[in-house]
């Protein structure tokens, strides 16, 4: 079982390497550090949120409100700054708002027992609405020059954007927690079978609560990165990001059914999507064709892992179907 899941991740990593090689071949201006910096900047917000989404989907839950949370954190930062607070304080406020969004989702799911899909579709709309309520139709700009230069500038002496440091640190922490701590093992166990996890003494609800809070906080971090990168906070930013983030997470080998996934597989998937987009763009594809290709990629990203999963779980899946059938038969009798 673990051998097969390992090879899917390896497949994604190989896919990334092939994508980079292909980009180098087809596009003249692809393989250089300035383009790498553009790709890094473009995917950092996705990657940061995907780290948390990996945990959440492994545990069998999902958060569709991440893009709205990102934007609400950004809008809150802008709002607090516009109200006269120092920008540093405003950023902390934005992070706390992100955390609060996650806690609210977690509360509705774990305390009230509502399905996370329904809860986070609702909060997707709610948090977006709050962004508009906070900022009205006035985006906040004129952020301090120092922070704009952090948001768009590069680490001195390198070609790397500052946000890359944030991503590397967060990725290392996420990798360590998921694959090397008891909390990480709980996350997997809950995703495989929440009932069994509960009976074996794992605090299921508390773990899920923590995962939602973490997802909110990571969305908040991404919101700050986003605010700095675009030197503004607006109520209508990051629309639709959740789709790309979830698709990349699934493409990275995280099972939508829970219980399976790795951090580095997801990171490879996020970067693959960024690399392919950049290569296509630089080889002259119009935005229309890009949409078509990304649509196709997303489709593959959902279907392919499920196919491998189905192959892997052929036996258990068959057993499950049998059980269902039996139940249905019982019901008919």
């Amino acid at each position, binding site marked *: 079982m673990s051998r097969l899941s390992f090879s899917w991740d390896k497949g994604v990593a190989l896919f990334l390497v092939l994508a980079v090689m292909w980009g180098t071949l087809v596009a003249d201006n692809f393989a250089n550090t300035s383009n790498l910096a553009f790709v890094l900047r473009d995917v950092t917000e996705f990657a940061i949120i995907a780290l948390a989404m990996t945990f959440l989907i492994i545990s069998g839950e999902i958060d569709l409100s991440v893009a709205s949370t990102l934007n609400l954190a950004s809008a809150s930062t802008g709002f607090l700054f516009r109200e006269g607070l120092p920008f540093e304080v405003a950023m902390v406020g934005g992070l706390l708002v992100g955390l609060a969004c996650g806690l609210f989702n977690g509360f509705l799911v774990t305390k009230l027992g509502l399905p996370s899909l329904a809860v986070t579709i609702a909060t997707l709309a709610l948090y977006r609405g709050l962004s508009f309520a906070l900022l009205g139709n006035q985006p906040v700009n004129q952020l301090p020059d120092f922070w704009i230069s952090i948001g768009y500038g590069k680490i001195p002496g390198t070609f790397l954007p500052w946000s890359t440091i944030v991503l590397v640190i967060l990725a290392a922490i996420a990798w360590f927690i998921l694959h090397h701590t008891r909390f990480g093992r709980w996350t997997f166990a809950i995703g495989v079978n929440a009932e069994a996890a509960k009976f074996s003494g794992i605090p299921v609800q508390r773990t899920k609560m923590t995962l939602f809070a973490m997802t909110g906080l990571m969305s908040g971090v991404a919101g700050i990165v986003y605010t700095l990168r675009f030197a503004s906070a607006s109520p*209508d930013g990051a629309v639709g990001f959740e789709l790309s983030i979830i*698709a990349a997470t699934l493409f990275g080998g995280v099972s939508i059914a829970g219980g399976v996934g790795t951090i580095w597989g997801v990171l490879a998937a996020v970067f693959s999507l960024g690399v392919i987009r950049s290569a296509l763009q630089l080889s002259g594809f119009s935005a229309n064709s890009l949409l078509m290709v990304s649509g196709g990629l997303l489709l593959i990203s959902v279907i392919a892992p499920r196919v491998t999963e189905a192959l892997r779980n052929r036996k258990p899946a068959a057993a499950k179907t049998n059980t269902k059938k039996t139940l249905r038969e019982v019901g008919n009798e």
Partner: protein
Amino acid sequence: MNNRLIKSGIKAFALTSVLALGIAGCASGTTESASTEEETPAAEETTEAASEGLRIAIMPKAINIGYFAAWDEGAQAACEELGASCDYIGPNEATGPAQVQFINQVIQEGYDALVISAADQNAIVPALEEAAAAGITIVTSDADVAAESASARLVSILPSAADRIGTAEVDWVAEEVGEEGSVAILSAAATAANQNVWIAAMGPYLEATYPNMSWVGGSLDSAVFYGDDDATKSVEQFNAILSQYPDVAGIIAPTTVGVLAAAQEKKAKGVDVAVTGLGLPSEMAPYIEDGTIAKVGLWNPIDLGYVAVYAAVLGHNGEFDGAVGASFTAGETTYEVVEGGIAYLGDPFTFTIDNIATFKEIY
């Protein structure tokens, strides 16, 4: 049990949304690809020799919008006259972050100049500054960056002074409703800078000029509905206006997407409300010809694109510095840069049954 429900729900969501995206991709993928890469023959004037071989990126807020196709037509005409090679590139959603990815491409491919209609007046500024630092001459056309960030571009080519675009639309609707009744506005996105400036000018003008007219709901704020430059959403908002304010006399849609949606829905529902605003003559012609719409207006996007390319080429060649008071000639007209680093084309142009036949062929 609950858990299984969630899981199957998640699966269904993931699959349907991905499918929807794929289908949307296919649908928009069928439209014609928008980049033009023709080397144009050389011409005779002095500027032309210097601009020979210049590569210019023409970037709309979003491709697939008729208005910007006309804008690009003007730009391509200027490129041909100047011997530059121009590519029409840009995102298919009109947001700043989406545009930034294409500005990055312009930097990456080493274009000489960028003519851009800013989809977001703030979010693209750092990217434009990076482009300028890479030696790319930047001219905004049709939509500018925020006033505080004006130094990010050489000059901005705009249609008419913003106040006049707003107040002219109030005049059009007043004329049609007999200077009496309440009026609503069907705008683009809540953050659309152009629309917000025009709408701000409409408010006091209507109150001061037409004593028997008012905004629905009693104030300008309550009268503005946002269709997000999306056809479906604009139709929904049009219907929302009618259901919230059944006695509305007129609707101003200061966006080509909104006014078209309003015209279509007005005709489909046969409702009695005056609709006017900013519309493309080619799109609005059927509704003007059948009497659904009396009058819409617009500046000439062809001229906006045309003049912007001249400014970009002259700027790149060091013959025009974009300073207030400086002037440049595009075709046969000379434009002067006014306060804010802006050159205006003139007054909005109106289309009625009398001239629509001619203009619908043009853009």
